[in-house]
């Protein structure tokens, strides 16, 4: 047998691939999807499938247009983005809103920047930010508490066969707080308000608290499987806890307790699944702490004092902007450079 062309070492490779990583992320999302579906109904599954299909279509189309291989469809990254869009958009959004979100995520935020690994911003959060700015009303229509529409009716709402009914939707706990805080006449306490609207569950928004707990479980699984590192989520949830604790201690009537904040809205999803996006986030251990901490803090500030009911998307996008710079300034000392207290000057340009 003729000798094969020499390749150079190493000749061994671990059992790992981008696809395997993405599959684990989707596996970790599964508990959240299941609980969410139990809460909302099969409409969520329809949204997930819708987003996944269009994500693959857009990804394939633009890979082709850019003259790249279609093999990237198998890496699973588009599917993870699609799942995140389906989970962050209101579950009864019209179909075209979901598709538009997927378009912005896959085409604008990812493919136009050069595809996988090149996007400076998290694609799913770009989709969310664009849609909430462009269609604030639609993006705020969350199904009313305890509303269980039959599947056929959900489909009619999503695919637009019947007019959208405002009665279907209601304020989320975060919406309610935001609205109340904005009213000067508001004198009661947040807790009473939430309870009066039967929005409050055991420790956070009713129903939603279990969805976010499921995200937490999935996130811990990712840390356990070493798909993500602990720094980003711990810093994210930590900073959110600290700032919410401070505000809550100052005025418990106006501000919710930390537990409520951690388990409401997109905090858990953001901390474990979005801020940990390696492409658009920080890569150094110290950088991840700064990134997560900053995102958690900004998310709280936007959520409580800003113009939007939740701040996860904007806080993560803002930190995405800072990530490259944070990385440059947080490069860890290398082997043999901690000793003697002398660190080599690194080029910051």
């Amino acid at each position, binding site marked *: *047998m*003729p*000798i*094969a062309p*020499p*390749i*150079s*070492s*190493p*000749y*061994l*490779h*671990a059992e*790992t*691939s*981008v696809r*395997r*990583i993405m599959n684990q992320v989707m596996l970790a999302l599964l508990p959240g999807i299941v609980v969410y579906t139990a809460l909302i109904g099969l409409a969520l599954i329809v949204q997930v499938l819708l987003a996944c299909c269009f994500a693959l279509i857009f990804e394939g189309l633009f890979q082709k247009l850019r003259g790249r*291989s279609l*093999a*990237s469809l198998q*890496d699973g*990254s588009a599917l993870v983005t699609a799942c995140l869009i389906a989970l962050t958009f209101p579950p009864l959004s019209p179909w075209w809103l979901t598709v538009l979100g997927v378009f912005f995520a896959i085409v604008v935020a990812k493919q136009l920047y050069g*595809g*996988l*690994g*090149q996007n400076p911003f998290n694609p799913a959060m770009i989709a969310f930010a664009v849609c909430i700015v462009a269609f604030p009303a639609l993006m705020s229509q969350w199904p009313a508490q305890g509303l269980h529409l039959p599947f056929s009716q959900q489909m009619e709402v999503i695919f637009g066969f019947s007019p959208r009914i405002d009665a279907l939707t209601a304020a989320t706990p975060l919406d309610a707080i935001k609205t109340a805080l904005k009213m000067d006449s508001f004198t009661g306490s947040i807790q009473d308000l939430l309870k009066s609207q039967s929005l409050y569950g055991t420790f956070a928004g009713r129903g939603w608290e279990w969805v976010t707990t499921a995200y937490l479980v999935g996130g811990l699984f990712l840390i356990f499987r070493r798909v993500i*590192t602990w720094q980003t989520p711990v810093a994210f949830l930590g900073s959110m806890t600290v700032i919410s604790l401070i505000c809550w201690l100052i005025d418990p009537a106006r501000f919710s307790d930390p537990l409520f904040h951690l388990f409401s809205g997109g905090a858990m999803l953001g901390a474990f699944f979005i801020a940990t996006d*390696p*492409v658009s986030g920080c*890569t*150094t251990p110290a950088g991840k702490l700064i990134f997560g901490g900053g995102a958690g803090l900004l998310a709280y500030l936007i959520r409580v004092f800003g113009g939007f009911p939740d701040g996860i998307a904007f806080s993560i996008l803002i930190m995405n902007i800072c990530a490259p710079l944070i990385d440059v300034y947080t*490069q*860890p*000392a*290398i*082997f*043999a*450079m*901690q*000793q003697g207290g002398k660190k*080599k000057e*690194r*080029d910051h340009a």
Partner: protein
Amino acid sequence: MLQKLFKFKGGIKPAHHKAESQGAPIAIAPLPGRLVIPLSQSAGEAAQPVVAVGDRVLKGQFIGRAEGWLSSAVHASTSGTVVAVEPRLMPHPSGLATLSVVIEPDGEDRWLPLQAPDYKNMSPKAVLQYLQDAGVVGMGGAGFPSHAKMQNSTVLEDLVINGAECEPYITCDDRLMRERAGEIVAGSRVIRDLLQVKRVLIGIEDNKPEAIAAMREAVEAMGETTFSVVVVPTLYPAGGIKQLIRVLTGKEIPVDKRSTDLGIQCFNVATALSVWRALNLGEPVVNRIVTLTGNVEQAGNWEVLIGTPMNELLALARPKADTDGIIMGGPMMGISVPAFDVPVIKASNCLIARSPALFPPPPPEMPCIRCGACARVCPQELQPFELYWWSRARQFDKAQAYNLASCIECGCCAYVCPANIPLVQYFRFSKGEIRAAAKEQKMADSAKARFEFKQFRAEREKAEKAEKLARAAAAQAAKLAAERDTPPGGESDTAVYAADAKQAVIAAAVERARLQRAETDSRDA
């Protein structure tokens, strides 16, 4: 003695694949039909051939003389006839041919009469010279001339004997420690005395319990209290010199320093054995232990004559039909040899038969997703994905700023990369480009310096010449003036006047020359 162990960051745990070959005792490989002995088997200068075609040589006879201090002698591995002294392919990634001595064995394998040196009564310098002449080089794979590492120029504290053997598949050091522990310890003792170190630390990975037991027994039998056999956790690359020194002593060697700067010197177990055989028996390095493994029916360890063609040797292990290459060294840092019949050299610790099934071609490279898996396993604590980024963009100054030079090319990063990026190849490319640029720069600098000096010299000579001419002209003018102005009679006054005029002209000429020179200087600056 209880030894405090330290940890290095990163590292990987690939499948060992040591079971295939570690059970087989060392066997003596039969004489091959031809021996091809490269004269360049160690770092530094190649040895110079001292035999010619047609010469009869005995086993252990000089065939190549060391050229300078950083070079090592080469010997005939068996008795026979020199049939060629010509460039031949050798196991080197360059695939280049190097001057080699080809010997046709006479089948007698007759030694040159060996005479053990009286090394205990020799000066250290003479001992080192002896080791150089015995062709003792690093047997762990690097092939650095050992005598050059034993010059006791700085005060050393620790001698590290490397028996970690952290690469998968390789078991030659394991077998050597199990079977020849006494000689290894004796060799280590000689090195200890040459280096005058306080401690000898023998580091062995914990997946070699038999070797550990044998070495401990040998140390005890010799009653050496300065020795300790230290069991280190199995974690690739624990056998890398920087990592092993870190684990054993807690010290970290920076990229711009040598281990001796921190008081440590390091040798492989097989090198210690070579030292012992050279000094105790007068036996030069003519063979080594080679692990034959990989895509073979019968993996094992063999004592092999240096120069044995690899295909002939590998046949002993019965390679399977789909074998499509040979890796020399381990699967993490070894090289693919350029041809099946390249010879075994002193650095050939292991031959792994390659097959597409055993070492499948790497899957297509995908984009980096900056997951950081590479950074988590890098034993040098680098950020390989950043180095990759800059290497790919050919921004070599940035790659250097991110400490590319500290990369030891252990391959951990490429092993764990989910995007199948051949990171180490990128880094080798960058290092090569940086080296080439530095060389070019150096050449350009010295050319510039030469040119500038030449110009300076030309200008200086011109100025000196002008000054000389001016002086001569002034002297001439003054003389003429003196002659013309001297009236008969009033000699004394006019003589004074003439002398003044002469002085003035000379001063003017000197000033002109000075200005001219100053102008030249300022142009140079």
